[in-house]
């Protein structure tokens, strides 16, 4: 991919024709438990390879560990990352750790993809249906939890989704001829959806009432406990987004909420939705049909 068309990861064509997919990501803790944090960070890093339609196989650790952190805590972060990588069929070999006040962890990940399986942000076509494979709300929940404003039960709603690999979601997409997909992370659902719509030169009609939102996220959204990233997403992407005015403001904001290892957003040809649903069922992969791709001025209209 050239720099002119940003996508989820770098794709590099080797001399033998193989396409290499490379990506790197790391972030500060989103949960207290060191092992879970390592696993979430790893799943999030690997997700960008899946979002390109690729198969990851190799990764390097990227970490910042405070010098006063007990070594057994740091070891738990790495163990979480390593085991999540193993679940994905990825070997973690080395990497680099530096000293910093706040811990950070993630992976640089390499995978491969064949040209016919490449999923691009610009691949959506009018007439296709939009499918999302994880509910929204992890940003506001983890942020409120760290501020002491959300219960452990609220956090427990978000953790299994943040831990979940996007591998099966992409397998289900590959059961169809879909070419347009991305993963929902820091820019939020509407930010990543806008990137797709603009890259493809199409309009997304999103049905707000069908977008899945974690129950625990709603009361926290009403209190406006959003992370700064969510506010930044709204400020930047709203130029391409219109809302039905009857959609409550906190729901509008939840659609912009910065996600950690959120789901795959894919544009599936309408005639292949059954095949996609069938593949999801076989893989025990949930999904929600949240809208459709239409012709018109590139951007997003959010309706009820």
């Amino acid at each position: 991919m050239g720099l002119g068309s940003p996508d989820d990861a770098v794709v590099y064509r080797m001399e033998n024709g193989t396409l290499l997919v490379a990506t790197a990501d790391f972030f500060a803790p989103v949960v207290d438990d060191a092992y879970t944090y390592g696993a979430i960070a790893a799943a999030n890093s690997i997700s960008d390879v899946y979002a390109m339609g690729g198969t990851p196989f190799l990764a390097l650790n990227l970490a910042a560990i405070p010098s006063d952190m007990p070594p057994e805590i740091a070891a738990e972060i790495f163990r979480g990352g390593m085991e999540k990588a193993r679940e994905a069929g990825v070997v973690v070999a080395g990497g680099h750790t530096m000293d910093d006040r706040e811990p950070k962890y993630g992976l640089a990940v390499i995978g491969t993809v064949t040209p016919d399986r490449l999923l691009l942000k610009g691949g959506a076509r009018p007439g296709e249906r939009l499918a999302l494979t994880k509910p929204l709300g992890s940003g506001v929940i983890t942020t409120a939890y760290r501020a002491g404003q959300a219960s452990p039960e609220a956090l427990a709603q978000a953790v299994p989704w943040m831990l979940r690999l996007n591998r099966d979601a992409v397998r289900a997409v590959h059961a169809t001829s879909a070419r347009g997909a991305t993963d929902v992370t820091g820019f939020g659902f509407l930010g990543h959806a806008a990137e797709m719509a603009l890259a493809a030169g199409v309009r997304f009609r999103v049905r707000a009432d069908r977008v899945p939102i974690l129950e625990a996220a709603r009361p926290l959204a009403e209190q406006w406990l959003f992370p700064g990233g969510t506010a930044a997403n709204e400020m930047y992407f709203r130029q391409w987004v219109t809302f039905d005015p009857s959609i409550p403001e906190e729901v509008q904001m939840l659609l912009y909420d910065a996600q950690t290892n959120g789901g795959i957003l894919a544009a599936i040809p309408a005639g292949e939705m059954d095949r996609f649903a069938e593949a999801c069922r076989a893989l025990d992969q949930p999904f929600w049909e949240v809208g459709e791709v239409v012709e018109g001025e590139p951007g997003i209209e959010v309706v009820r």
Partner: protein
Amino acid sequence: MAKTVDARGLPCPQPVLLTRDALRESDAVTTIVDSDTARHNVTRMAEKAGYTVRAEEREDGIYLHISRGEAAPAVAPAPAPTPSGGPLVLVVPSEFMGRGEHEELGQILIRGFLHTLNEVSPLPDVLIFFNSGVKLTVEGSPVLEDLRTLQAQGVQILICGTCLGYYGLKEKVAVGEVSNMYTIAETLMQAGRVVSL
């Protein structure tokens, strides 16, 4: 007394939480922030809760003055507004003046009206733009100069944020302040006289 919250350097949602706590103790709060995201989150939270927010950019930070609407300062409980004593409010619900066969005439009339308004007495205290009326307040509007002159003479200009959002014009506002239904409803209910075009 207005309370002051210094939220500079604090990540979200701390500025929101500190402001919310302060608003439990005082009806008027000034929160100082130093990032656009904190400014945005605090402003949205306060407006959603029915407060009016006025932002003041200073060298050492962004001062967000949060209060229960302009008309009711928090110092003393406001006396019930008397029907004749409240402000004169002019409502502009459309980009056209009157309804007729030709929209063009409606546009000519509203331009003429807002231009003339500067020269009549008394001036309205508040101008409220909603529905397609908000189009008069954005870049490219032929009446911007007139509205700016009115504003310079102390006329408060409130623009319906929902309507701007509906038309996709939020970024294009060139005069007045983007407001919400709480403030608009409160302004209308406390008005001495409401004139609707």
